[in-house]
């Protein structure tokens, strides 16, 4: 187990400290709570946005806290949902009286803990609601099961809900925009290597030198299919087809795309992936209007990537283009 760290049990706390020290102009923390806040939270007259989940997905979620995106991110232990009391602290800290929306990734742990926090906040008289993101097409979507996971597409939800909230919209309006976005976002990932959680100290699964795991989540869970390593072009096409057919996306669609590195895949390779993805889009006559290529929702030191497509409409495209000023996503006005 080779990691740059001190005690594995301290890594989340130390990481959060490091983030705040690096970005004191953008972030402040709530002591001992794993919560990172916009320095100016709560923002008067704005719906507060809270997201979070287990750690190990950096820059998610703290990297997306800032004007035009999240008001707070709550970090749990590595790959473990934060507890309700921490989430409650975040909700309280960002509530300006206009209500708070929680953006939750669909994992039993996250859903249950956020659900309890929302109940507690509501009991304290805060107007609070939540949406659950489930963009991972690798997993069967059934009401009888846990359903689809929330993966990298969550960050597009942060962006559009963030812009909507910044516009002064009400909680139901922000929620509606978030739900609309969720309905139009689809993702799927692949791993070339497993990841190694700091406390476990052992890889989450094993892969042969020429094997890859298709349809992985972001917690070192094994994927849905194991195959031989494929060339980038075939790998991208495999994921793209699955994603495209699921919604389905169609000719003429205007889309935002995300090529998300899982933690240890070099940007060089992500750009190769993006080139292949653009070839797929061209072939299907879809129009890319925005591309995020880099690391957004990682899985510790896993090698691999996920693809996300986001079918835009006029409102969503405009929201995506709005200014944002988080550590990871920064864009000026248009």
């Amino acid at each position, binding site marked *: 187990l080779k990691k740059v760290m001190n005690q594995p049990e301290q890594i989340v706390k130390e990481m959060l400290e490091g983030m705040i020290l690096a970005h004191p102009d953008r972030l402040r923390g709530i002591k001992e709570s794993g919560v990172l806040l916009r320095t100016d939270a709560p923002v008067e007259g704005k719906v507060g946005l809270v997201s979070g989940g287990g750690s190990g997905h950096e820059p998610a979620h703290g990297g997306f806290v800032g004007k035009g995106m999240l008001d707070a991110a709550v970090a749990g232990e590595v790959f473990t949902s934060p507890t309700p*009391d921490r989430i409650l602290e975040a909700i309280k800290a960002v509530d300006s009286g206009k209500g708070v929306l929680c953006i939750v990734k669909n994992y039993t*742990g996250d859903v249950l803990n956020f*659900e309890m926090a929302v109940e507690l906040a509501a009991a304290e008289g805060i107007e609070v609601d939540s949406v659950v993101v489930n963009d991972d097409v*690798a997993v069967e979507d059934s009401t009888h099961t*846990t359903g689809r996971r929330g993966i990298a597409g969550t960050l597009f939800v942060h962006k559009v809900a963030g812009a909507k909230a910044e516009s002064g919209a009400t909680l139901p309006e922000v929620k509606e925009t978030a739900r609309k976005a969720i309905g139009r976002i689809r993702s799927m990932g692949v791993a070339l290597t497993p990841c190694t959680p700091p406390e476990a100290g052992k890889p989450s699964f094993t892969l042969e030198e020429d094997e890859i795991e298709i349809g992985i989540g972001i917690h070192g869970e094994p994927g849905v299919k194991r195959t031989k390593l494929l060339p980038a072009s075939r790998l991208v096409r495999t994921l793209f087809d699955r994603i495209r057919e699921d919604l389905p996306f169609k000719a003429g669609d205007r889309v935002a795309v995300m090529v998300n590195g899982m933690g240890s895949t070099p940007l060089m390779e992500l750009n190769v992936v993006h080139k292949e993805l653009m070839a797929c889009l061209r072939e299907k006559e879809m129009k890319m209007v925005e591309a995020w290529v880099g690391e957004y929702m990682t899985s510790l030191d896993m090698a691999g990537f996920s693809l996300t497509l986001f079918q835009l409409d006029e409102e969503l495209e405009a929201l995506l283009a709005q200014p944002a000023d988080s550590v990871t996503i920064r864009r000026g006005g248009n």
Partner: protein
Amino acid sequence: MNAKDVAGWFQRYADVIEEKKAWLTELDSAVGDGDHGANMARGWKEVRNQLKTFEGGLPEVFLLVSRTLISKVGGASGPLYGTAFLRMSMFLKGKEEIGHDDWPALLKAASEGIGQRGKVNGGEKTMYDVWAVVSETAEKRAGEPVRTSHLLEWAREKAEAIRDLRALKGRAAYLGDRSVGHRDPGAESTVLLFETLHQTVSSRGGNGRER
């Protein structure tokens, strides 16, 4: 069992969890995200700490465990176990002892709590299956005294039986058919809870409450 006995049970369970931490994590690595051992250990370590200075009555012990698990564990198991202990605490309100005939209703409260919180049904291969079988079987035998050895036996059998199922809830569900044959970590930590209960009761030796 009175408050002290129950505290003893939980202290013993905290030790067992510490001991079995690596094993639980290993089970979770195979089908989930490899943290069930760490999650449980984090919560129960804190339970043990809290119990050191604890003075309250029977429902309060359960409430202490519930609150501690909810605020320390996170993940799926935190709210689920937390809810189970909360419901048991509520059921025990006003009582000072768990009598033989309390077990069926007590376990039912726990089992229903998990079922509601987890939106889970039987046969979906989670800890719920174990809680449900223990509660239902105890209920069916209403009238006969429920021994902790029975609880343990039913729990063990169920945990063993669900290995062959395909998981439908929790992270293992993402594996689809590949989950078949693997043990469910939460079911196994539940078995350990009943195992420790049985050991606690047995080791009190001749005070006869178990007989």
